[in-house]
C-alpha cells in the first residue's frame, strides 16, 4: 500500500470536485421526494438523456459545453413535466409500489431507446476545457472538474433562492410540509407537483452540461449516477436540501480517498459501507429530522 501526502491531497481535491457533481445530481431527486414522496428511479436516465443532448450540441453543433445549459435545463424541465403529467400523475394516489414499478419501467424504456438510437458506444466530447489543468505542487486540479464544482454550487444557490425567496418556492415548500394545509391556503397542489418535478429534472440538465466536458455519455451512464444519487439522498436525509449537498461531497470524498488508501477494488466498498452504517445507526440521514 502506498500512502503519501501528495496522494492524499490529490484524493481530497478530486473527491471534493466530483462530490460537487454528486450533490447537484442528487438535489433534484431529494426535492421531488420531499414534495410528493416519490423516488424517481428514472432519475439517472433523465441525466443520461440530458448528457446526450449536451454531447450532440458540443460534438455536432460545435457549441461551448457550458452554453448547452441554455438547452439542456429547459429541455429537461419540459421532459420532466411531460413524463409526470402523462405517467406519474394518473397513479399518484396508488400504493407506492406502483410508482416504483412505473419509474423503474421508465428508466428501462429510456435506456433501451438510447441503446437503439445511439448504440452501446460511449461518447465523450473533446472540448477546449478538457485539457485545462492547474498544478498545485504535485496535486493537479482538472479544469473542467473545477468549473463543474463551481457551477454546481451556483446552481444549488439558485435552487435555494428559488425555493426560499419566490412564491413558487413557497408553494413547493408548503406542499412538502403539508399538502392538505397548502390546499386550504390556496396553493394549487397539482400544479406545484408538476413544477417541482420539472425543476427537479431541470437540475439534471444543468448537471449534464457541467459533466460532459470530462465524462462521457452512454446508454448506461444513468445507472451509475442514479445509484450514487439514491445513496446521497438517503445519507443526507430524504427530502433534505442542504443534507443532499453535504452528503454529495461526503460520498465524493469517500470514493476518492477510499481509492487512494484502500488496496485493490475496495473503493466502492467504502462508499456502500458508509451507506450501510448510516442506515443502521442514523437512518434519518446526517441532517434528517431537523429541517424540511
Amino acid at each position, binding site marked *: 500500500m*502506498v500512502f503519501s501526502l501528495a496522494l492524499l491531497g490529490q484524493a481530497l481535491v*478530486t473527491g471534493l470536485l466530483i462530490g460537487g457533481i454528486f450533490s447537484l445530481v442528487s438535489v433534484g431527486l431529494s426535492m421531488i421526494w420531499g414534495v410528493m414522496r416519490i423516488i424517481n428511479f428514472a432519475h439517472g436516465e433523465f441525466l443520461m438523456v440530458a448528457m446526450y443532448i449536451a454531447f450532440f450540441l458540443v460534438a455536432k453543433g460545435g457549441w461551448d459545453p457550458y452554453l448547452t445549459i441554455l438547452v439542456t435545463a429547459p429541455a429537461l424541465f419540459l421532459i420532466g413535466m411531460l413524463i409526470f403529467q402523462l405517467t406519474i400523475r394518473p397513479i399518484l394516489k396508488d400504493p407506492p409500489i406502483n410508482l416504483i414499478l412505473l419509474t423503474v419501467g421508465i428508466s428501462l424504456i429510456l435506456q433501451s431507446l438510447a441503446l437503439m438510437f445511439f448504440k452501446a458506444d460511449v461518447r465523450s466530447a473533446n472540448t477546449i476545457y478538457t485539457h485545462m489543468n492547474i498544478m498545485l505542487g504535485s496535486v*493537479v486540479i482538472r479544469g473542467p472538474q473545477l468549473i463543474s464544482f463551481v457551477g454546481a454550487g451556483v446552481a444549488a444557490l439558485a435552487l435555494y433562492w428559488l425555493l426560499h425567496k419566490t412564491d413558487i418556492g413557497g408553494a413547493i415548500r408548503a406542499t412538502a410540509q403539508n399538502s392538505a394545509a397548502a390546499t386550504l391556503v390556496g396553493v394549487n397542489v397539482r400544479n406545484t407537483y408538476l413544477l417541482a418535478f420539472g425543476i427537479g429534472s431541470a437540475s439534471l440538465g444543468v448537471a449534464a452540461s457541467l*459533466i460532459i466536458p470530462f465524462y462521457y455519455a452512454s446508454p448506461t451512464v444513468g445507472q451509475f449516477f442514479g445509484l450514487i444519487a439514491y445513496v446521497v439522498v438517503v445519507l443526507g436525509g430524504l427530502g433534505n436540501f442542504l443534507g443532499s449537498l453535504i452528503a454529495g461531497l461526503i460520498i465524493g470524498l469517500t470514493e476518492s480517498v477510499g481509492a487512494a488508501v484502500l488496496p485493490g477494488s475496495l473503493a466502492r466498498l467504502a462508499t456502500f459501507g458508509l451507506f450501510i452504517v448510516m442506515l443502521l445507526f442514523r437512518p434519518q440521514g446526517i441532517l434528517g429530522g431537523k429541517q424540511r
Partner: protein
Amino acid sequence: MIGLKSALSLTALALALSASASAAGNTIKIGALFPLSGDVAKLGEANKNGLRLAVDEINAAGGIASMGGAKIELVWGDTQGKPEIGIGEVTRLVEQEKVSAIVGCFQSSVTLPATQAAERLGVPFLDNIATSDKITERGFKYTFRICPKASWYAKDQVGFVKDLKALTGKNVTKVALLHENTDFGESTAAGQKKYLQEAGIQVLIEVKYSASAPDLTTEVAKVKAVNPDVVLTVVYLNDAVLIARAREAMGMTKIPFIDAAGGTIDPQFLKQLGKTAEGWITEVEFTKFAPGANVLNDKYFNAFGEDITGDSAYAYQAGWVIGDALQRAASSDRNMLRNALAKMDMPAGKHMILPTNHIFFDNTGQNPNAPLFVVQVQNGTMVPVWPAKYAAKKVQM
C-alpha cells in the same frame, strides 16, 4: 393435394440436385457459424467477411486441386450471440446441411458449448478468434484454434517489455498494474503477474478500479506515486479515456502505458482523445501497417468498405487453413479432414496474414504460433513496433 404434390416434387428435385453435386464432387460444404444478429452482429459480420474473402480467393484460384477443382461452399449459421442457439446451429449444420467442418464462432461463451457439440458429433471445429484459454484445454479431438489464448495477451505484453532494453535501451525492472476489476481485467492481470515474475520484473503496485467510475485521477496518482518504469493496463474504452486524460494532466507522458488489446484498440480511443493518446502502446491481432498487409487490406476494403480487424484477419486465415487441410485430405470426410488439420504446417507466404513463420496445431489443437502485434500511437495512427521483424516504426519513449 396440390401442396403435397409440389412438396414431393421439390424434395425429389432437391435429392436429385444433391446427388448430382456429390457425384460430381464439385462442392464441399463448410459451416460458418457466427453471431449474425443480436448485440455483436457487427463483429460477427467482420468474421463473416474475412472468411468469405478467403473462400472466394480459393474458389477463384481453381478450388481444391486434389479433389478435381472442387469448390468450397460456405453454409451460414447464426448464433445470435447465444450459447443455446450456437449448439442448435452446430447440430443443424452437421445433421441437415452435412457440412465437413465448422468455422466459428467468435464469442468464447458460445464457442465453448459449440465445440462440445461438434466433438460429440465428430465434426472438426476451427476456432478462429474465440480466445478463452479453456477452449483448447479440454482434451478435445475435433477442436482446433488459430488465435492466441487470452492469457497470451499478457505474455506478449511482458515479452515486449523485456525487449524494450534492446529496442530503446530502457531497462524495465519495476512496473505498475492498472486494470478494471471484472473478469477481463482480473484474468489478464493474473497472466501479467505470472509472466512478470518469470521475467524477474517487480510489480510495485496493482491498482484496480470499476470501469464506470466518474474519474480515475486518484487511481492514476496512486500509480504515479510509486514511480514505475512502465504501466501495464487492462481497460475498456471509457476508462481508457479517463486514464489517458489523467496521465496527461499529471505530467506522466514519459512513463509508457501499455494496454492488452482492450478499449485502446477501439477506433473511438484515438478519435475521442486526439493528441492525448500519443505514445500509448497496445496489442492488436492485425495491423494494416505491417509489411505487406496493405495489399490484402485494400482488397478487403474494396469488397466490404472497412479495414481488416483482428476478427476478420483470423477468419480470413481460417479460410485458408481449411483450404490447405482439404487439399491434403483430398476428401470431404470429417475424420480425414480432422487428421489433415492435426498435421497442419502452413508456412509464411501469400496466404499468411499472421506475424508468424508457420501455423500448426499442437496435440491440444492449439496453434502455438499466434503472436500479437504491439502498436504505438505515433502522430495519430497506431503503427506496429513489435515484433521487430514486423515493425514499421521504432518505439518512442
